[in-house]
């Protein structure tokens, strides 16, 4: 698969310029975060981010003046992360999903009343909130976390997620539904211990 959105020219320049360094500093957090949320491993996310910026450097002449540079970087980071997941985890998919309903806390489990997740963290510092959410996301199985991240963070519609992951549309919808319920449940458990902080 081609990981890069269409571009017009390539840069084989001699060495990184100061402009490129500034460009990288502007987007490196976004690229790293996009990758880390999908692959759930900081070292692999850093490797992928490095590849993203090397591709960006090859097209820097176009990207440096493009208002869509952030979108381009995010698309490449997402594609490389998904390629990475598919390359290394396909072999385990069968085993991890075979009869695997124990990790699918959600629509089939008894309905439990819990507060809306976005109200848990009212008054909590943004970095602390991010740490809680990242930790909760990391607890979801790959087949729930990846479509959830693609849908809510990357704004990719259900049908494109299904196509990209090579699964049915129904499975994507079910996995995302269960992922939301599981995430809310994990956060509500955490929210109980966090509650004193938010008052």
């Amino acid at each position, binding site marked *: 698969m081609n990981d890069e959105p269409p571009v017009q020219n390539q840069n084989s320049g001699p060495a990184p310029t100061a402009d490129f*360094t500034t460009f990288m500093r502007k987007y490196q957090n976004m690229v790293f975060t996009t990758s880390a949320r999908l692959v759930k491993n900081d070292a692999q996310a*850093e490797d992928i981010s490095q590849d993203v910026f090397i591709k960006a450097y090859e097209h820097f002449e176009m990207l440096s003046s493009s208002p869509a540079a952030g979108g381009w970087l995010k698309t490449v980071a997402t594609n490389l992360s998904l390629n990475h997941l598919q390359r290394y985890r396909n072999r385990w998919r069968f085993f991890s999903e075979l009869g695997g309903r124990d990790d699918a806390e959600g629509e089939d489990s008894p309905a439990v009343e819990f507060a809306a997740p976005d109200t848990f963290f009212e008054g909590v510092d943004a970095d602390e909130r991010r740490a809680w*959410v990242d930790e909760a996301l990391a607890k979801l199985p790959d087949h729930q976390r990846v479509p959830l991240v693609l849908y809510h963070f990357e704004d990719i519609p259900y049908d494109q997620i299904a196509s990209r992951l090579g699964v049915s549309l129904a499975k994507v919808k079910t996995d995302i539904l269960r992922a939301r319920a599981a995430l809310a449940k994990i956060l509500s458990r955490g929210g109980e211990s966090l509650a004193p902080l938010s008052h």
Partner: protein
Amino acid sequence: MSTNDPEKLEASIHRLLRSIPDRRAPASLEARVLGELSRRAALPWWRKSYAYWPSAVRATFFVGSALAAALIVSGLFVLARTTGATALAGGVAERFSWLVLAREIAASASDRLRTLIGAIPTLWLYGTAGAIAICYATLAAIGAAAYRTLTFVRQNP
């Protein structure tokens, strides 16, 4: 507010996820990228891919490749028309005559195998296939159970 309503839950999760800030990239990322770019920039052109070769070299390479291909094709054509080519073909065929023998042995073995399978009652064949399928399914189930057990132990030490 309750999140039993899927639509409210979706909106709530969406607001929450979109409200969290990006993580800080590792401090080593910038140095790694710049180091890799410098390393690539320092490579001589002949160690880079064709797309990065100088235009003159690319043109020379293209013309040279076309000439080499033309020379090989015309050389083979000329060789095929000379009398020595027949003797050469004969020599090659003699050297690989064992392939003909191997093909005859394989054909004979295939015929015998087909006769043997034909002699076995159909019920036995279905029974054997069923037994193999059951063994395969059992092995897959044991593997899946072991994987899930080990994964659960690793995630919940």
